[in-house]
């Protein structure tokens, strides 16, 4: 069995080389960051057990509260401004709140309502004492217990949002990433899904609006956030998840905020990124299985043929 010994030597050196240039080198070049399981342990707990949804609704819908800037289509409230004007006013288009309760973690939402710069971990950029206010105004309370009121608002947002199992990948992506990051393989711009245009003029007009939006975004973030079309291949799911969980773990001082998504919404975001950057994964697995079966049968026949021929040669 000399040949098996030789094969073992070849396989051994191949695996050593592979280990050194792949897992080992990458572990040295990129620090490994553990997922925190989307627990947001640094944020205060929110007690939703006896939250009052009706009160929450009044607070969210009330004048001067959320709907001054945010739209809420599920409640029939359209956006007060078009995306370009909104981006020119706030740096980025404020999200529609219809599904905020389904995408964002409850603890995060509560913290965000009270102190946006803190929840988003962008205090290095927005320091109220230096007069650098975060474009989202903190909620100072309607006169009652602030924490109770915030809990009511969170409960209301959760009550109107789509059910967990109905949350689509695109809805999750829009709220988590889609107002800053384009994904042109999915036909997504920072202004949403690109419509189909009948006239070239309309298309050009839309493109101009996207460019204007991007200009505001660039000024707000420092640079245009990257297109995420194939981030699933250039960064991988683990990197994306842990980056979204807390961008400061990777890039200290980055303008990218902590997004505050819950674990389920994150899975949906990854699904969206896989659909754009690795669209044929299901087909690949299926075809792969069949090809493997075929090729193993081929190998077995090749071995039998060799045995048959070599019977005379020994």
């Amino acid at each position, binding site marked *: 069995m*000399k*040949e098996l010994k*030789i*094969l073992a030597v*070849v396989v051994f*050196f*191949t695996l*050593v*080389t*592979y280990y*050194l*240039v*792949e897992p*080992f*080198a990458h572990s*040295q*070049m990129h620090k490994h960051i553990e997922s925190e399981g989307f627990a947001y342990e640094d944020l205060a707990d929110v007690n939703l057990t006896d939250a009052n949804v009706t009160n929450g609704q009044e607070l969210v819908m009330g004048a001067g509260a959320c709907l001054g800037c945010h739209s809420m289509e599920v409640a029939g409230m359209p956006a007060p401004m078009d995306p370009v004007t909104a981006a020119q006013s706030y740096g980025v288009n404020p999200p529609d709140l219809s599904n905020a309760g389904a995408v964002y973690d409850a603890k995060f939402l509560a913290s965000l309502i009270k102190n946006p710069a803190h929840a988003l971990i962008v205090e290095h950029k927005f320091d109220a004492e230096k007069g650098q206010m975060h474009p989202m105004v903190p909620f100072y309370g309607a006169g009652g217990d602030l924490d109770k009121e915030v809990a009511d608002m969170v409960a209301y947002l959760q009550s109107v949002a789509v059910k967990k199992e109905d949350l689509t990948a695109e809805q999750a992506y829009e709220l988590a990433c889609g107002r800053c990051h384009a994904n042109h*393989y999915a036909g997504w711009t920072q202004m949403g899904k690109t419509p189909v245009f009948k006239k070239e003029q309309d298309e050009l007009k839309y493109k101009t609006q996207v460019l204007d939006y991007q200009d505001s975004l660039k000024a707000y973030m420092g640079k245009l956030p*990257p297109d995420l*079309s*194939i981030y699933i*291949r*250039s*960064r*991988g799911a683990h990197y994306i998840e842990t980056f979204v969980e807390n961008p400061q773990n990777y890039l200290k001082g980055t303008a990218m905020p902590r997004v505050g998504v819950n674990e389920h919404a994150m899975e949906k975001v990854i699904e969206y990124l896989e659909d754009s*950057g690795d*669209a*044929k994964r299901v*087909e*690949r*697995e299926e*075809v*792969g299985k069949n*090809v*493997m079966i075929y*090729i*193993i049968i*081929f*190998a*077995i*026949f*090749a*071995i039998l*043929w*060799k045995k*048959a*021929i*070599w019977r*005379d*040669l*020994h």
Partner: protein
Amino acid sequence: MAHFTKAKSLHDWLNQRLAVDAVRRVMATEYWIPKNINFLWAMGMILAVTFGLLLVSGIFLLMYYQPNVATAFDSVNYTIMNEVEFGWLWRHVHGVAASVVFLIIYIHMFTGIYYGSYKKGREMIWISGMLLFVTFSAEAFSGYMLPWGQMSYWAGMVITNLFAGGSLHADGLVEWIRGDYVPAQAFLNRFFMLHVLLLPLAILALIGLHFAALRIPHVNNQDGEELDFEAEAAKYKAGDKAGSKVIAFANDFMSKDMMVVGIYLVFFFYLVFFHYDFAMDPVNFDPADGLKTPAHIYPEWYFLWSYEILRPFPTDPGLIAFGFAQVIFFLLPFLDRSPNAVPASRRGLFNIWFWVMLVDMIVLTAMGKLPPEGIFSTIGLVAAITFIVLWIALPFITKKEKEL
């Protein structure tokens, strides 16, 4: 003009015009191969099959790839991967084969070195093989440019900068190669042409030369035994197949070749379908950006050892060491002064030389990928010096070897 008779069959018709029987005899049924060779001698067939896969998948990719700096990236990553039916398959076959082909080439090369197959009249096999290696390297490098990703761009920048020759400052030469001050459209166009036309043509011609070089000196064998091929072939033809030390290429050795190829293809398609990402650097899935340098620039794994011979030295000595590493393998048949063409295990000091060289090249490969900092730099420097010293020592080590 030759005399033609009315053909009795299609075979006869072809035989009168193309001498198919004679060709088959020379190329297959009476092309004699030593019986005593192991599966490592099937690497040639594996390489031929892999090259075939590269050629076919490359032709399909060529139908949709756009050699334009504005559209190249998306033509590969969107059009081919998402829109073209089975485009992902051709791309992964091409990408995986491009990496695996080098693994097999290295196994093939080290097999040749271990068994002394470059000696005693087999120098041309070795030299034509090395020419193939160099041409394959150029083919791989030019192909790596085409998706126009971040690593394509920056690897293109680094490698073309080598032609400035350090303090020679041959900047004009670098610009002439690039057709611009930085890698841009002209650069992409000419590398596209090199990758899909000129270099594949050269490879095909060199494969022909490599095979031709094999005909007269014949394939070496596991024991380095000198065979009387005619006498052994006569034995075989007389019916003593078991007693003869040679076998016919077809179907005898080909059946073994196909067995090895079959097992190899299981491994190959496993990679294509379930682990295709091993061959593709994630950084290259970011589009080329001339204004943003990647944190670490490194070549594909198969170039790492020679990259690491360049890197630990100051510019000029580094370039000289790099040049040395590129040509020194060509000289192997002449630097090895021993009269023996037997396995390294029977050659004393050379056996140690072989294993140290193998390990040293793996160390160089590993260090070439790692960031050149701290202990990694030191290990890289030691390994690079070891590489050079090994080659300088080779003639002295082998000169002392006694004839077996």
